[in-house]
């Protein structure tokens, strides 16, 4: 049984790889036309496989499945180096969803650009899938590097000035972050002798105090992954990149790539190494940085004039919530952080899809020049509202549950005052949502936009489906929590 389950998991690596191979080896005329459907198919297939895998895991009462050598399935668990558990499946589902959403619209005017985008996006998907599957800190770093390199090239896809500049600035900060992560990894390797998750969990479960190198290592790791995630004070590159990247690239980047590269890695590291028990200094730093990020992001979002930059700062604020959840170190915290990861992925994908639709129709994202689009693009306005309110944490969207879990986790770990502050910051996000809605969708009509028509086709399908998923998931979460409670996780 585990063999069949394991063979299903190979789809996470095999599917994008086969798609890339097929796209490049087949005839030119055929491939140019099937770029977009291929991307949507791969994304949807990954979502389906993730859901089926989770159901299979539940059916066989296993919490994770390990699979190892590609040509030998009988290797024991100790040598396995790819593993799928609940967190990985949530991440894989989100990756598939963001990729399907990014491919769902006819963005590109030339087939050449579509072909390049498809190749790079599938390789990005491979890198992120790998990061979700591995059981070793160094392999996590390598797959995150793959994703980073893909995102630099994707930002510069059109080879125009803004994209190239955004790509290069992203590259500098990303490379600096990689060096910091590697220093942290080298220090941990010096002390422990292995970088596998299980060996490190064993090493860090010993009594305190840890050697000084390990404290330094956690500092470097937080710094490096913080730059990649967009934590304040390392967040400067995020709004520039989201603004300068082409529309589907910004959906991919904001929807899943920055989350996977930064916050998923932090969740994975801290939960695998049982962060709270091993290193209170790291937890305190994460708590502080998370809190600062929440407020700086929310306040900066209120002051922006450009729609995409406003969305970028708002998502930085939500990243602060995820880090706040990670810093608690208890089960509530990690589950809340992973759920908020899911919320943020869904929300950002919808928000940036809508922003791209507005941009494509009106040729601007300056909120001062937009107005009254609700009549012309009603669906875009509604999905924007739903996604923003989900990010802000209003019921019945799934964002309400994830924020609730995080605040309970912070409360449980003894920081009641900080939990209250985090609750207050939700109000700021609601204010930002209302501002965007008022300026872009409601408000006085602008004459030069009178000829704008609503988008049709794939983008409407994807944003409607995802908004519906936000609400449906929010309604289903109580059942999920009850199920987890029955399994004894709380």
């Amino acid at each position, binding site marked *: 049984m585990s063999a069949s389950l394991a063979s299903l998991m190979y789809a996470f690596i095999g599917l994008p790889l086969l798609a890339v191979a097929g796209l490049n080896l087949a005839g030119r005329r055929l491939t140019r036309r099937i770029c977009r459907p291929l991307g949507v198919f791969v994304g949807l297939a990954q979502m389906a496989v993730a859901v089926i895998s989770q159901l299979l895991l539940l059916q066989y009462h296993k919490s994770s499945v390990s699979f190892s050598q590609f040509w030998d399935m009988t290797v024991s668990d100790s040598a396995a180096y790819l593993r799928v558990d609940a967190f990985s499946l949530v991440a894989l589902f989100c990756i598939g969803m963001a990729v399907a959403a990014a491919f769902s619209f006819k963005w590109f005017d030339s087939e050449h650009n579509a072909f390049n985008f498809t*190749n790079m996006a599938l390789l990005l998907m491979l890198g992120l899938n790998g990061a979700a599957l591995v059981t070793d800190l160094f*392999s996590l770093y*390598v797959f995150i590097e793959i994703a980073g390199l893909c995102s630099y090239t994707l930002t510069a896809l059109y080879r125009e000035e803004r994209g190239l500049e955004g790509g290069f600035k992203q590259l500098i900060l990303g490379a600096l972050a990689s060096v910091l992560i590697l220093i942290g990894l080298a220090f941990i390797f010096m002390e422990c002798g292995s970088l596998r998750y299980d060996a490190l969990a064993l090493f860090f479960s010993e009594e305190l105090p840890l050697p000084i*190198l390990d404290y330094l290592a956690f500092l470097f790791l937080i710094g490096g992954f913080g730059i990649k995630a967009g934590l304040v004070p390392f967040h400067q590159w995020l709004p520039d990149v989201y603004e300068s990247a082409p529309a589907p690239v910004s959906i991919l980047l904001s929807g899943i790539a920055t989350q996977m590269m930064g916050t998923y890695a932090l969740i994975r590291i801290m939960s695998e190494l049982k962060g709270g028990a091993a290193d209170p200094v790291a937890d305190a730093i994460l708590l502080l940085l998370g809190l600062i990020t929440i407020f700086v992001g929310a306040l900066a979002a209120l002051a922006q004039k450009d729609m995409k930059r406003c969305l970028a700062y708002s998502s930085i604020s939500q990243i602060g919530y995820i880090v706040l959840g990670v810093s608690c170190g208890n089960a509530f915290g990690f589950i809340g952080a992973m759920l908020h990861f899911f919320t943020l992925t869904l929300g950002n994908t919808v928000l940036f899809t809508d922003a791209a639709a507005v941009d494509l129709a009106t040729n601007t994202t300056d909120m001062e020049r937009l107005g009254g689009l609700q009549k012309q693009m009603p669906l875009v306005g509604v999905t924007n509202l739903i996604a923003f309110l989900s990010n802000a944490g209003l019921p019945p969207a799934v964002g309400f549950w994830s924020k609730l879990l995080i605040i309970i986790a912070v409360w449980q770990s003894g920081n009641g005052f900080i939990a209250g502050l985090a609750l207050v910051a939700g109000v700021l996000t609601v204010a930002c949502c209302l501002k965007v809605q008022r300026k872009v969708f409601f408000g006085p009509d602008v004459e030069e936009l009178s000829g704008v028509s609503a988008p049709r086709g794939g983008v409407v399908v994807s944003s409607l489906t995802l908004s519906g998923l936000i609400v449906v998931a929010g309604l289903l979460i109580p059942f999920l929590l009850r199920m987890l409670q029955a399994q004894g996780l709380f």
Partner: protein
Amino acid sequence: MPQTVIIICLILSVVAGLVCAMSGRLMHAALALAGLSALTAIILFLFGATMAALFELSCCVGLVTVVLAVAVTLTRPDSPEPETAPASIKRFSVLPLLLIFVGLMLLIVMIFTGFSLDPVTASNVTAEPFRDVFWGTRQADILAQIILILVGAFSVVILFKESE
């Protein structure tokens, strides 16, 4: 005996890094980076990591230096800038002093805190040769390297190919 050679190579590598940072002409900086990579390869070999030293020599000294030299050449302006000899060293004239200061501070901190790296004495840790580790237990890394090479190839195509 190899320990002394390693220490000499380490000091030389800092010198190479200084030349890379302070030199006025980009080509000299790229060549100083090649020198730094060569010294790192020698240090790797002296530690007994022969495969890594081989990779470092062939890939970093060979490939990365060529790539950076191509980049330097292709971004050179048509009229050469007048570069006088004092200017080429005067770039970051404070840098060597700063680095010596940083190095001394680190040494003082390490000696003061009694810093020592005790090797891990786990019983089930055996020193496996490179090939067993690489092809055996690190296959995720092999997959990652294949994907990396694909990413590099596609990036170069995307960045340089003119659309037809």
